[in-house]
């Protein structure tokens, strides 16, 4: 039977929703699942993890050095815990993408990136070529599977669990060659792009940073997160942490608005798991209409404020 270790992602005070989704992927593999959190003081974080349904145990590794979980510092601690586990999973977020390959290499094994479906305990589906192809791969069962879960492919595990929490002492020497300096968050009061139920994204057709305000305005009316195409990011209208697509965030909101976005394959790969896709674009030939559930051909500068007004009434 599989024994799976899932590495939790957090910001110091809250467990990131990616963790509950990675847990769901682990449950598809089947077997015993432990969650582990690396923090300076993980008491409150471990409580949050204990509530996730499907975990056998929550392991809490508190160390001064874990105040900010830097990959080079967390990886050797995971390696120290690895023996006995058949699988070690992290989320396919920038946290997991940075960390897990380092863990794999230290263990002398490869990694399965972006699991979108578990076929069996050692066979997985994952997207390649910007989602143009789905690859099914089989990992050697004799070796530890290190993997990341594509969070947009999984529903978050429920929160009525009560797993026991164990504080674990990991005695391993940690490198001092990598030091966290700070984080500048483009943060707003808007919902997080990766967990928002509704997301409104704008593209190059917005034309300027100023014009993007109509996107924010519509999003705020609906309590939505705000995203953007790579073209809008490249044009400097919005910061890169808003980018949706192959090289940005992969999201799966219930409702997605693509406004002034033509729909390059690299963008579509980021939204293909969305529930309902709405497209507003003045070019009726735009590829976004091939995937949109509801399309409107028209001038976004008229349509978006009008839609906002209609939602008011």
């Amino acid at each position: 039977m599989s024994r799976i270790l899932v590495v939790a992602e957090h910001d110091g005070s809250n467990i990131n929703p990616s963790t509950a989704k990675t847990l769901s992927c682990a449950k598809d593999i089947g077997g015993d699942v432990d969650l582990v959190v690396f923090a300076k003081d993980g008491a409150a974080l471990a409580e949050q993890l204990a509530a996730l349904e499907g975990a056998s145990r929550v392991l809490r590794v508190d160390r001064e050095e874990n105040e900010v979980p830097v990959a080079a510092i967390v990886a050797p601690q995971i390696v120290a815990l690895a023996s006995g586990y058949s699988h070690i999973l992290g989320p396919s977020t920038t946290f997991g993408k940075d960390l897990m390959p380092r863990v794999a290499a230290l263990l002398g094994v490869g990694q399965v990136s972006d699991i979108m479906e578990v076929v069996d305990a050692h066979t997985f589906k994952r997207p390649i070529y910007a989602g143009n192809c789905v690859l099914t791969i089989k990992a050697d069962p004799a070796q530890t599977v290190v993997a990341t879960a594509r969070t947009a492919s999984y529903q978050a595990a429920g929160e009525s669990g009560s797993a026991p929490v164990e504080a674990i002492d990991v005695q391993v020497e940690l490198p001092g060659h990598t030091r966290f300096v700070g984080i500048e968050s483009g943060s707003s009061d808007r919902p997080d792009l990766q967990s928002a139920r509704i997301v409104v994204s704008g593209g190059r057709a917005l034309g300027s940073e100023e014009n993007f305000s109509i996107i924010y305005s519509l999003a705020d009316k609906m309590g939505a997160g705000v995203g953007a195409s790579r073209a809008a990011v490249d044009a400097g209208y919005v910061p890169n942490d808003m980018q949706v697509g192959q090289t940005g965030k992969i999201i799966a909101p219930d409702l997605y608005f693509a406004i002034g976005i033509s729909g390059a394959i690299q963008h579509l790969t980021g939204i293909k798991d969305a529930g309902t896709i709405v497209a507003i674009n003045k070019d009726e030939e735009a590829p976004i209409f091939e995937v949109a559930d509801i399309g409107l051909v028209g001038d976004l500068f008229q349509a978006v404020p009008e839609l906002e007004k209609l939602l008011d009434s």
Partner: protein
Amino acid sequence: MQKIMVCLKRVVDYNVRVRVKADGSGVATEGVKMSINPFDEIALEEALRIKERGEAEEILVVSIGPTDAQQQLRTGLAMGADRAILVQVEEEIEPLTAARIFLALIEKEEPGLVITGKQAIDDDNSQTGQMLAALWNRPQATFASAVTLDGDKATVVREVDAGLETIEIDLPAVVTTDLRLNEPRYVKLPDIMKAKRKPLDNVGMADLGVEPRKQFQAVSFDSPSERQKGIIVEDVESLANALKQKGFF
């Protein structure tokens, strides 16, 4: 520093829409335009800028792949790299093997910094840079959007989900590049001519003492499930109504 090593991968060009072969044995790459992985091109550009600022003396570009990957290395030389090494490998190798090969090159070449792309746009693995840093037992600064060198240290701004994270690392180290780090230069014709005279060495995996290991078997390649095309509405009011019908608002 003396030397920066940049790892380049030959991949299907960004603008090609790849198709899965009918028999599910792979994607059709015959006769398709091949290019330097765009993130690796950004990596090379960054190395060249560091050299142009007088902070590095030599830029070495390396690649692992078939003989044809020489084309991408020549392009790298035309962009301004000084020297190239191709590790000739005909079969597909896994990222961990790629990292072992790069480590062997590092041990020979002793670069002060290794820069590569954050992911290759073919297999979308995003593993090799991190694995290399782990095997080398050195720092990694992934998804970089700004790199500042200061003696034996570097400050790197990283594009993370929550925003922009800054870390300080000791050198040598591995940096992997994100999109906004820079905009790669265009190659000019005279530079292409000049690049033909720059050294490009070919070595084999065995010369480096690396044995390929295979942990994964490709079972099948399939086309993704397509979304169904939906409806086109006439006006904004119909759009709002359609959303209400679907239970939104």
